[in-house]
């Protein structure tokens, strides 16, 4: 078991390192001049002062060979130093740390809503014998995945902030301000969860062990709860990492729509200003979240699925 944990942990660290490398390659090595991008972003339309260029190049190390830049940046990143924002001059790690709580609240609330909503749609549609109810429920997920997130947000704003002034339109004040953004973020994810879960639940209902359970005299409700749900949820669990990653990405759009402070707002401004260190920091944190969620799923999986737990491979 220890070997399994260590291997998973090692793989996670490797992915994180590779994500850092990829973001370095994209941001620093693409055929563009980072210095002029940054200068242009910080001071659009301004004249380029050669002295300023040289000074900036030296500060960020662009005058050195790429490999050396990479090693220096990686070394700093390992100590938690992700560089300094070009626009504000604040340390990137500080900016990320300030933004994180807001986004964490938003995304975890959204994840909760999505799991409940998606799980309920899947469970009821697979349990019900009414073809009409089933059809109506299963028509929802395709709608959910087809709507642009920003559009859902604007629709909700229109309906529940302007028509019916139930929730504040913008800002980070209190729980009320969290509801609309979280619902916006949850709708596409709940649709994905419902689709995946409904499919695997349908597969589970067709499994012979369900027939065995029914032949014992079990009711459909009992079969759904005791046999189908657990078997269907296990494969869906592995998608959680991607789902949470997409929540983080969705937050970029949603926080912009609702003018909320947070991770999304930070990266949106950074991209606009082409603030390379901040963008890289956000990308690495995005990968970190994915890696951590997957690590948790991987480590929890053997406890949930006996077939994995007791195979000799992990002994």
């Amino acid at each position, binding site marked *: 078991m220890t070997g399994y944990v260590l291997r998973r942990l090692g793989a996670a660290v490797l992915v994180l390192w590779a994500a850092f490398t990829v973001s370095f390659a994209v941001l620093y090595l693409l055929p563009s001049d980072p210095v002029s991008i940054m200068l242009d972003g910080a001071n659009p339309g301004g004249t380029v002062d050669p002295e300023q260029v040289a000074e900036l190049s030296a500060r960020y190390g662009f005058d050195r060979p790429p490999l050396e830049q990479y090693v220096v940046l990686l070394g700093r990143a390992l100590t938690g130093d992700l560089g300094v924002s070009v626009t504000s001059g604040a340390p990137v790690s500080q900016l990320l740390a300030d933004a994180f709580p807001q986004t964490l609240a938003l995304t975890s609330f959204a994840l909760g809503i999505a799991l409940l909503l998606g799980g309920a749609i899947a469970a009821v549609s697979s349990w019900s014998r009414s073809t009409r109810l089933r059809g109506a429920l299963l028509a929802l997920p395709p709608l959910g995945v087809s709507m642009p997130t920003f559009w859902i947000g*604007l629709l909700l704003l229109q309906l529940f902030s302007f028509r019916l002034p139930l929730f504040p339109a913008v800002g980070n004040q209190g729980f009320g301000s969290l509801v609309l953004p979280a619902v916006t973020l949850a709708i596409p994810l709940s649709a994905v969860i419902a689709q995946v879960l409904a499919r695997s639940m349908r597969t589970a209902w067709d499994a012979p062990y369900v027939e065995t359970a029914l032949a014992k005299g079990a009711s459909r409700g009992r079969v759904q709860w005791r046999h189908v749900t657990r078997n269907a949820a296990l494969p869906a669990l592995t998608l959680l990492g991607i789902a949470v990653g997409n929540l*983080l990405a969705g937050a970029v759009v949603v926080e912009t729509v609702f003018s909320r402070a947070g991770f999304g707002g930070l990266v949106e401004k950074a991209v606009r200003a082409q603030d390379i260190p901040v963008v890289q920091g*956000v990308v690495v944190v995005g990968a970190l979240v994915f*890696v951590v969620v997957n690590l948790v799923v991987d480590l929890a999986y053997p406890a949930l699925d006996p077939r994995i737990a007791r195979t000799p491979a992990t002994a």
Partner: protein
Amino acid sequence: MTVVSQAPTAVAAPSVVLARPVPGRRRRHPLATPGVLASFAVVLVVLGWALVPGLFTAADPLVGVPADKLSAPSAEHWFGTDNLGRDLYARTVHGTSLSLQAALLALGLGLVVGALVGLVAGYLGGAVDAVLMRTTDVLLAIPGLLLSLAVVTALGFGTLKVAIAVGVAEVATFARVMRSEVLRVRTTTYVEAAVLAGARRPAVLARHVLPNAAAPILVLATVQLGVIVLAVSSLSFLGFGAVPPTPEWGSLVAEGRNYLSVAWWFTTLPGLVIAALVLAANRLGRLLEGRAHR
């Protein structure tokens, strides 16, 4: 002689096979459902908008009549007008071409590069496979939109760059599916039978592996088209796409943000077009998927 020779003669074999309808097989033509017809209609209309926008609207997408600003949808202005009095329907129609070009470019990039990577990895196997697949693992670990944002940061703004950014984020998805398809087909019994029949590797690849792996990839492409349209319009909404006043679907919605309380149509109707196209693409994708699995 044994009883075996008394079995029905072999020539009679085909006729004794049960030819009754099998439960679960579709009878009605799968293209005739209302959902599929509507999806086809949406796709056709959008394609028409992209190719010959002038045929669908006579109004100017760039110049408005200030007196008509923020007027609600009417027979004259189907989608209403914006804050400068421009016809929103005309802007949506004229924005289609650019939005669709970006989506198709991104799809092409993801499809071609991804399929090549997946093919090479799946076919060569070994160290090449390991390196390529670990790389796609990493690309998948970075949320797609964040990866696109990083590429936009490096390349700068504009529709073309947004398309490339979205396409890059799609490569890993296509690579993974292509590789698993190649591996699946390579280990099928019929490929083993071809090897035993004396077929050489290039013949096996060209005659068996590619044709059988291609169908799922094309299905994936239709499904991903919806995802890509959403990603492109998100980046456009955030303001990284075309420069105003050029209309583009995502930026059209963004322009209406400040008029939410007074002009519901401003954001709602262009957004509805995006949702309709994505819904239609997904529906057709599922149709293809169902047919591919038959």
